[in-house]
């Protein structure tokens, strides 16, 4: 198995004595689908942002694709992030005024994909998430579920080695949440490596690997049988 990400003894302290993460270690291999669960304030988002190199740990190391993140300049780390990682957030973060395909193309811009290749790739990614018929729609013309699928298309358009999602179903109703979750399962089946945060125990129970966080520590990391 190829190691995609490796977090070693990572701690994150915030000013004012908050310890959001306390000596956490976590490895993710290519092809995994990992659920990160835990109560509110347990440090899930903090862990995700450290995994995603959006933040640097106060102590400990993060290795992404064999690079020690701490040793990289902003320019290099950003390039690495753009090429290797994809992000999906609870609040889709689509740019108003840009069409679905333009929003998805943004996922290629910072990875250095030439302009003329972007549109075709973005259209393909939209088709992959089942939105081939919504290419020129603007965000306000899309439903919540469709917006999140556009955001997922933007995250996968550059074939990231690791897809990170922070409560991707959190802002959706049950049916839309289910559809988005099915999409993650399908992407995983097609070979994507995915780590997703969820509050929902039922969702977590369906995923092959479940990491439980509490008070900034990983309290369990179980690889179970996929119940589907």
């Amino acid at each position, binding site marked *: 198995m190829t190691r995609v990400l490796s977090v070693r003894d990572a701690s994150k302290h915030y000013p004012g004595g908050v310890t959001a993460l306390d000596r956490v270690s976590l490895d993710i291999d290519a092809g995994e689908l990992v659920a990160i669960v835990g109560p509110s304030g347990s440090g899930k*988002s903090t862990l*995700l*942002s450290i995994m*995603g190199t*959006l*933040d640097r740990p106060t102590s400990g190391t993060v290795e992404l*694709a064999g*690079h020690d993140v701490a040793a*990289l300049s*902003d*320019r*290099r*780390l*950003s*390039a*690495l*992030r*753009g*090429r*290797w*990682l994809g*992000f999906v*957030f*609870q*609040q889709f*973060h689509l*740019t*108003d*005024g*840009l069409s679905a395909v333009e929003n998805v193309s*943004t*996922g290629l*811009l*910072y*990875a*250095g994909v030439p*302009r003329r290749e972007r549109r075709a790739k973005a259209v393909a990614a939209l088709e992959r998430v089942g939105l081939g018929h919504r290419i020129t729609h603007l965000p306000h013309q899309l439903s919540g579920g469709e917006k999140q699928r556009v955001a997922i298309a*933007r995250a996968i358009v550059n074939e990231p080695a690791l897809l990170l999602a*922070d*409560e991707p179903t*959190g802002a959706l109703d049950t049916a839309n949440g289910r559809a988005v979750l099915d999409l993650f399962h399908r992407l995983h089946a097609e070979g994507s490596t995915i780590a997703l945060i969820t509050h929902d125990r039922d969702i977590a129970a369906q995923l092959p690997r479940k990491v439980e966080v509490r008070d900034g520590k990983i309290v369990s990391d179980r690889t179970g049988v996929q119940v589907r």
Partner: protein
Amino acid sequence: MNDDVKPVRLALPDVLSLGTIGLRTRRMRAVLSALGIAVGIATMVAVTAIPESNERALMNELAALGPNLLQVNAADNPEQDFGLPAESVDMVSRIGPVTSVTAVANTHTVVRRSDLTDPRDGSGLAVLASRPDLLETLESTMYSGHFLDRAGGAVPTVVLGSVAASRLGIPSVPSDAPPPQILIGKSWFAVVGILATTPLSPEIDRSVLVGWEAAQTSLGFDGRPTVIYLRARESAIESVRAVLPATVHPQEPSRVRVTLPSDALFAKRATEQTFSVLFVGLAMVALLVGGIGVANTMVISVLERRSEIGLRRALGANRGQIRIQFLTESVALSALGGGAGTAIGVAGTAVYAIANDLPVVVPALAVAGSLGGALVVGVIAGVYPSIRAARLQPTVALASA
């Protein structure tokens, strides 16, 4: 270098399209915040173009009259009978760049409408002996009748300047009736023509012109010119001017005064320029206020778009790329204002010029300078907001849940 971490450079079209997202998606705000710059630039263009149009009108006027006309006077009070040497006209004609030369001489005689008027009352008119080529050198035309002809008839002839004609009550010269006659000294002269107004030599307008030889025979004129008019190639006007006193009067060059009659017309330009300095100052203030407006809009825009910035960082944008995006947006806003302001300024100048019957002149330098100024304002206004945007933590996209 490992390709994974090789920094990505954005191509120029990408930077431009990133930098105009804010403008394209928030149009009303873009228009309003560019307005200040537009007002500043419009003022700037108008205050430089309007005086320029005025000046062009003046230059056209001068070109029509001839900015290459020089006038040589005896420096002394004309009441003292100081004439220039008789050969001076020929001497002047030998100066290389001189294209034509002529002269008049004050005969110090009195002109009257008839022998019934007071012999001391000359109506403020001078009687000048004129060389036959006066008309050509002054590039003047006849208003009525014809100029002095060499072949004198039974009665010697005169031509009147425009003011002299009206003072003497001779509005025009009839072509089918015998010419009106006037009395100069003790002799009668037939009026054969009236000159059109000569703006560069108003003294000609107020004079009665007698032929050079006729003046010598009938008025006892000594043949010494008092005023020489000459035209020279425009490029050589200053050097001709410099050698004239010594050419005209080698013995006493300091008694000779050389003037460029078109100089007088330039005098009014000075007042217009002090006027425009005030407005350039106002335009600068407007531009400054416009720049502050753009900076303010940009700061707000950065605050509002925190999550967009976080998202872009998550997608792989580095700090420099965020900075250039917002800097470009600021410059684009200013450029929008600059472009609109230039259009408004040009339109305003055109309206003013057409209303005042002036040629429309928009100096390219003023337009380029104004647009350049707008861009500089955009850069300055964008520096702080774009640095703030680039300093935002990448985690803001996660945090603003």
